[in-house]
């Protein structure tokens, strides 16, 4: 079927608005659990446990306290969700978190394994919010990964903007490495976003 517009009849995007929490990050109805949360790693999930701590900032440098973050990633063995042979792993491969009053979000997950020798470990990240008419799509890389130098997606990014995709690791003091990632929606050091 050909529609008048060139988009193949796709349904257009609209903003998630400021009131998504009771529909997306809280249990939607009695007897139902939240679809996803901030914890991606179960006891059986292969990989090094890490914490991803992010912050979302707008064009004036103010924190965005009403954003929704979703991540998708491989497990520590480099297996994407749905591709691993059936195991006892609880790995959903997907997480969801809302930013708090300071614009921060936190995920407890594992460092993803490499999908191929050339690709660096990365986490796909989607962002929704009031004032965002479309989902923004980006990636989180890790500052201690030598494969960043050969990653084909990072190679598409202008060198002076690559740093916006690299999370900075630090010791959390609890034996779990903490990676900090800032998302700047607009302006200086604007985060690289992708289209597919």
């Amino acid at each position, binding site marked *: 079927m050909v529609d008048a517009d*060139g988009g193949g009849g796709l349904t*257009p995007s609209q903003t998630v608005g400021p009131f998504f929490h009771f*529909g997306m990050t809280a249990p939607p109805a009695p007897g*139902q659990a939240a679809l*996803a949360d901030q914890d991606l790693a179960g006891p059986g999930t292969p990989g090094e446990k890490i914490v991803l701590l992010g912050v979302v900032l707008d064009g004036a440098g103010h924190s965005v306290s009403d954003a929704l973050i979703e991540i*998708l990633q491989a497990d520590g063995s480099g297996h994407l969700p749905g591709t691993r042979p059936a195991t006892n792993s609880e790995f959903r*491969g997907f997480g969801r978190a809302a930013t708090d009053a300071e614009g921060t979000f936190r995920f407890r997950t594992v460092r993803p394994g490499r*999908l191929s020798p050339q690709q660096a470990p990365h986490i796909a990240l989607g962002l929704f919010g009031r004032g965002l*008419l479309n989902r923004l799509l980006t990636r989180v890389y890790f500052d201690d990964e030598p494969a960043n130098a050969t990653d084909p997606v990072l190679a598409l990014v202008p060198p002076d903007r690559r740093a916006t995709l690299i999370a900075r690791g630090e010791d959390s003091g609890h034996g779990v490495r903490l990676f900090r990632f800032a998302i700047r929606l607009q302006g200086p050091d604007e985060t690289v976003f992708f289209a*597919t």
Partner: protein
Amino acid sequence: MALPASAPPPVHPPSLAPDYVSTRLRAPLLPPIVLASMATESAAPVFASVAHEAAEADLTRQHGGEPIGERIIVSGHILDEDRRPIAGTVVELWQANAAGRYTHERDQHPAPLDPNFSGAGRVVTDADGRYRFVTIKPGAYPWRNHLNAWRPAHLHFSLFGRSFLSRLVTQMYFPGDPLFDYDPIFNAVPDAAARARLVASFDLATTQPEWALGYRFDIVLRGHAATPLEGEHG
């Protein structure tokens, strides 16, 4: 001499739509970098724990009594861009009540809450890609975008589809709403035919006598092919 073919208008709204004030400080100013193929983004979450959930949910039966307002049935299919149904995909919905008030602490505008209405539900499409919600028609909602600004009555929908790429958050509107011409979020979609796809159709076949008006609303998600985004034409 051949006339140049006119580029088809894009489906999705641009990031920056100045009439929608919040986009002014939140829209990225730099164009996105186009990725040709990405294994990670072509994957999909595994929602094994919800796969058993029904394709129908009733938001009017979540509390002790029935909510106030027009009972409606909203039903349709989730399709890919080849119009094939997507079975077993999650559909999330949330909305205001009949008075236009959300059960969210950030909504404090002077419209009453309904103790019998929360306004959120989730289903998983059946083998035919079909979903069905019974709910209450939401009221228009005032917001501070501009003086005397009101959102047309709408339902918020969240879809996954077959991969992280097909993920879509959108809003469904109701036919004949007088507020369409004034709404900068609805009008941020550049093409009239695309805007029309955000408006449900009244459907007598879905309507149940003495019970509820029915509306049909199909949602078409992108597949694996690259889709033109704002500013690009494919």
